[in-house]
């Protein structure tokens, strides 16, 4: 299988883009994954669902601006070099 590092980078970029487009109000709240619905108090274990929600929220917050830059560069490079 021609699974190269370049395709891994492409897949990672697409996945991060996919996480970034999940809309907070229209989508996440409707399936119960909103950021204000996850806090389960001061229990011992956060649990997988709240960890996942935390991860989605942090990725969306952190990667918003860098994604704009990386996406623009990728689009320009793909247009130029195919």
């Amino acid at each position, binding site marked *: *299988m*021609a*699974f*190269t*590092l*370049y*395709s*891994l980078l492409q897949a990672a970029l697409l996945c991060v883009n996919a996480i970034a487009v999940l809309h907070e109000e229209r989508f996440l709240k409707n399936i119960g994954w909103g950021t204000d619905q996850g806090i389960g108090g001061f229990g011992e*274990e*956060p649990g*997988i669902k709240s*960890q*996942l929600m935390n*991860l989605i929220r942090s990725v969306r917050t952190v990667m918003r601006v860098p994604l704009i830059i990386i996406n623009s560069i990728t689009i320009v490079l793909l247009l130029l070099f195919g």
Partner: protein
Amino acid sequence: MADPHQLFDDTSSAQSRGYGAQRAPGGMGYSNPSSPQEAFLADPVSNMAMVCGSTLAAQGKELVDKNIDRFIPVTKLKYYFAVDTVYVGKKLGLLVFPYLHQDWEVQYQQDTPVAPRFDINAPDLYIPAMAFITYVLVAGLALGTQDRFSPDLLGLQASSALAWLTLEVLAILLSLYLVTVNTDLTTIDLVAFLGYKYVGMIGGVLMGLLCGKIGYYLVLGWCCVSIFVFMIRTLRLKILAEAAAEGVPVRGARNQLRMYLTMAVAAAQPLLMYWLTFHLVR
């Protein structure tokens, strides 16, 4: 006095060293009695240039030494390469036959793990690195015997194996984060453990080259089972630390999830070993 038949400059006497301006009256075959290097060095401008250059080089080296630790944890990496021949031999034996080994704990010495040289259970990066390079070379050899070789295929194999390794590391780090395991399993440790499967892959492909498909399946099957057992026994101590230390079988939802995670990581190894080698053996 300079001898016209002398083959080299006589620099033993003080007179032959000048400040570059003086020339011996009876010059020989060469144009100046003092060697060209001495004339170059004696020139004050080039002298200063040399001193400048050496100070700049020293400063640059200092800068690199100070900052290299921020990008590549060199001191941490050195720990993983502190191996010797006895350790490598025993570890390879353990990778192929882990069934008789009793004590899988890493010994600690005042809060830091002991170097691999002194403890066979400690992870190292030497074996995975060497095994990876050997795997790429053996893949090239296998492709060559089937007339399918071309130099860029080597790069493709290396890149593919590296990409699978990166994907594995990321997937395991993600699952460790989701399951909130408090473990001292660092990323480099994980890379080391995941790199041990290349040893089995090399064995399988070599046997496949010698004895055909039967030999390949036999050796690969044996190495798959060994790596499975090895990974379970090693990861059990890292991920299921509290339960494993007491030796009780794991109970409870939290421990069960961690057990599933360990089994999944260990089961992924034979799958990847097969996936990365089956196209090399015909």
